[in-house]
């Protein structure tokens, strides 16, 4: 149960997830309310995801992710096509996340400690080298089997959670007046290279929002209170913290008491980050204030797209603000390092989980004869699919080289969109239809959740409906404004569509290639999926 929870919770990436929520989300939706967005997200997520993924996982407790459910409930072609999208996503997450370990992760750590961080990733080969080091560490955590993985996961989770607790405490114990004093002093000492018309006094707490609005040419200025449109828009970035516990499905076959553990692990993997985010949100509004927080996300140089009012020693992310609150001195530096390491720890594990998921997807394909036989090879010494993990590492390295040569984190948005549609939506659809489809009838009849009903309808159906509504809201937030959406995805929505089409076309081609290959040796692959009638 603890390991299943940890796999789900760690894939929500608490500190990096909160960073995306605040830095990316709030900088795009400046009038969003973090606390209300969290409550709405969790309201949807804690009902939809556990009931969909928990019940499917508990009914078909096999490792391999949603491919297992979708290929059995919907159709093998659909299962392979969407699974191709998911496999691609897990690999591209390495591309997207390993560089984030270096910047802002290590960069923030060095800056907090007063060291020069400019040598971390100035050139393509530096970016490739440092990302590759963390990629290799993540690879090794998984290579030697679940025992090593589970132990390392507990250690990383301990450090990650410990740092997050420290961030929460710092944000909570700092009063508005204390933060104002510390911010002003920090500006006086550290702000350099001011933009035209900006001086240190104009960056002080009281004038900061106005200065940012002027330099950033933000129409209407930085809002002093929240609005519903921006709060709904925030849900897309917030989904990083609440929509990714589905990674539990990749170890569903290795979980004790899957009928209970998978569903509860899903619930807690959503509630724990919710608790932290509510804490961070309330504490930030208490210590920093709504308008200043929104303004600080504009100057936070996430992806290099922030409003440049001056050069600061470190970014004004929520961790950066907490670091300012801590002050100076040797003890303060220890506290700041612990906070930065929380980000680094969670970010490393996000990459590690790609090495857990991708090889298991390949294994599940191989078992259905949807790939070469070596996809199913298990190393007897480590009890893990070592060949698949090695292949994942090679692909990951190739992608990191690409990321180093062409750094652009906007792909994160495309990935979020692809995941929402290709993975979450298709699986929610499978959950919606599960009780009513002929194919998996005997699986449903044997499901421990068959009797879970509400108003005469199986709860998995209610869960799927809630999940689909949530995914619809996320897509509304992600779609460009010209398509009637809220524009969280900007123009990168096209990237998402291209990626999804490519993944599905490749997946369908892959299915028919292996089907034909099997047929040529007299094997009908439908025997790996087809439901056998008992009578």
């Amino acid at each position, binding site marked *: 149960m603890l*390991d*299943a929870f940890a796999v789900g919770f760690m894939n929500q990436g608490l500190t990096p997830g909160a960073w995306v929520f605040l830095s990316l989300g709030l900088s795009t939706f400046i009038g969003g309310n973090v606390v209300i967005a969290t409550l709405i997200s969790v309201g949807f997520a804690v009902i939809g995801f556990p009931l969909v993924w928990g019940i499917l996982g508990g*009914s*078909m*407790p*096999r490792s391999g992710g949603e491919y297992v459910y979708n290929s059995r409930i919907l159709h093998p072609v659909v299962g392979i096509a969407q699974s191709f999208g998911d496999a691609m996503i897990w690999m591209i997450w390495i591309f997207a996340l390993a560089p984030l370990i270096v910047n802002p992760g290590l960069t923030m750590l060095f800056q907090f400690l007063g060291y020069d961080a400019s040598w971390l990733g100035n050139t393509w080969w530096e970016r490739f080298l440092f990302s590759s080091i963390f990629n290799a560490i993540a690879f090794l955590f998984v290579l030697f*089997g*679940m*025992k090593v*993985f*589970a*132990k390392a996961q507990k250690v990383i989770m301990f450090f990650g959670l410990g740092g997050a607790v420290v961030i929460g405490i710092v944000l909570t114990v700092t009063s508005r007046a204390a933060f104002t004093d510390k911010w002003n002093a920090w500006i006086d000492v550290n702000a350099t290279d001011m933009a035209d018309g900006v001086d240190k006094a104009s960056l002080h707490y009281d004038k900061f929002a106005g200065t940012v609005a002027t330099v950033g040419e933000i129409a209407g200025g930085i809002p002093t209170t929240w609005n519903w449109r921006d709060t709904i828009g925030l849900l897309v970035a917030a989904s990083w913290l609440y929509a990714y516990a589905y990674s539990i499905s990749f170890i569903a*076959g*290795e*979980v*004790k008491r899957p*009928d*209970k553990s998978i569903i509860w692990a899903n619930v807690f993997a959503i509630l724990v980050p919710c608790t932290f985010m509510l804490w961070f949100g309330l504490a930030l509004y208490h210590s920093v204030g709504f308008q200043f927080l929104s303004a600080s996300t504009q100057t936070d140089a996430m992806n290099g797209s922030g409003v440049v009012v001056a050069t600061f020693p470190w970014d004004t992310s929520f961790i950066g603000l907490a670091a300012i609150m801590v002050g100076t001195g040797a003890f303060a530096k220890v506290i700041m390092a612990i906070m930065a390491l929380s980000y680094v720890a969670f970010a490393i594990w996000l990459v590690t989980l790609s090495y857990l998921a991708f090889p298991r997807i390949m294994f599940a394909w191989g*078992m*259905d*004869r949807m790939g070469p*036989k070596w996809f*199913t*090879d*298990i*190393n*007897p010494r480590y*009890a893990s699919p070592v060949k698949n993990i090695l292949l994942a590492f090679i692909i990951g390295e190739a992608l990191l080289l690409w990321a180093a040569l062409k750094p652009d984190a906007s792909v994160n948005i495309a990935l979020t969109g692809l995941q929402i549609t290709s993975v979450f939506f298709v699986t929610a659809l499978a959950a919606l239809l599960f009780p009513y489809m002929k194919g998996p009838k*005997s*699986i449903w*009849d*044997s*499901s*421990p959740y*068959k*009797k879970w009903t509400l108003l005469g309808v199986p709860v998995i159906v209610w869960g799927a409906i809630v999940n689909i509504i949530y995914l619809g809201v996320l897509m509304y937030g992600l779609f460009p404004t010209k398509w009637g959406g809220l524009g969280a995805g900007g123009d990168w929505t096209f990237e998402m569509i291209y990626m999804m089409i490519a993944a599905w076309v490749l997946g369908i081609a892959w299915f028919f290639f292996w089907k034909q290959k*099997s047929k040529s*040796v*007299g*094997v009908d*692959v439908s*025997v*790996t*999926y*087809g*439901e*056998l*009638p*008992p*009578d």
Partner: protein
Amino acid sequence: MLKLFYVTDIHGSNVCYRKFLNALPIYGIDVAILNGDLLGKVLIPMVEKDGGWECHLMGQYTEMKTQEELANVKKIVENAGYYWCHQTRDEFEAMQQDPKAIDKMFKNRAYSRIQEWLELADERLEGKSHQVYLCPGNDDYYEIDDMISCMKLVKPCDNILIEFDDYKMVSCSWSNPTPWDTPRETSEEKLTEHLEEVCQKIGTRDKDFEKAIFNFHVPPHGYSLDLCPALTDDLKMKAEEKIHAGSIGAKQVIEKYQPLLSLHGHIHESRGAQKSGRTLMINPGSEYSEGILKGVIVMLDKKKVKDYVFTEG
């Protein structure tokens, strides 16, 4: 080419057994082997209450008020491989105090189901060309051997030399020691001796094993077919730690005699195939409690395994 269908560890699941019989014409099978464990593990008392019944099923308290509800729950129980019995509250409470009575009731229900299965097989296989063999596993009481031997169309194969086409198959239902003290487990030394005796039925020359098939319930130790979660002292799974639970004796005889094919079960979660020299070893795994019939179709052609495919339905 000969198509062999191998299924293992259905543990009393009615739906899996019925699917097994139906799979034979659907998959176009020549020879089918249903390997143990055949018996289930759980007895669910359905206790009378206020004109209806109550029971605890899969960790949930369940009440049945109508015959229809009762029939639905019974079906779930049977499909999951469990057994049920009707009891009054007094009968239920009396049986709780008497382990022997529980054992007797369990065996009664288990043997009844095996008998039903065998009769169903004879009914469904009548006039068809499939050869069907049943072999118990370590969880199965010895009493079912006689039941299998009495049937018309389903043949026993435990500890017997079976020949189909030019292939020779020997089977062994025993396992090495398990934490659950099951009916057919023995020490590694005795198991190795027994396996050697079983192998001798095929012959003594290398040539005798060119078209030999081993059907040993327990998989060989140290390969990827015998990996299962380690257990704590109180028999709880340590999900993160995998151990090899197979038999060293099975490993020795497979590596020594090098049959064409070696088929195994016992470790439900270790579905897979692996080569040891010329021998292809397969464990199709089991997911009986979910009503899923897992198996493997092996295509044999002369002295070769032409191909194999894992099935699920």
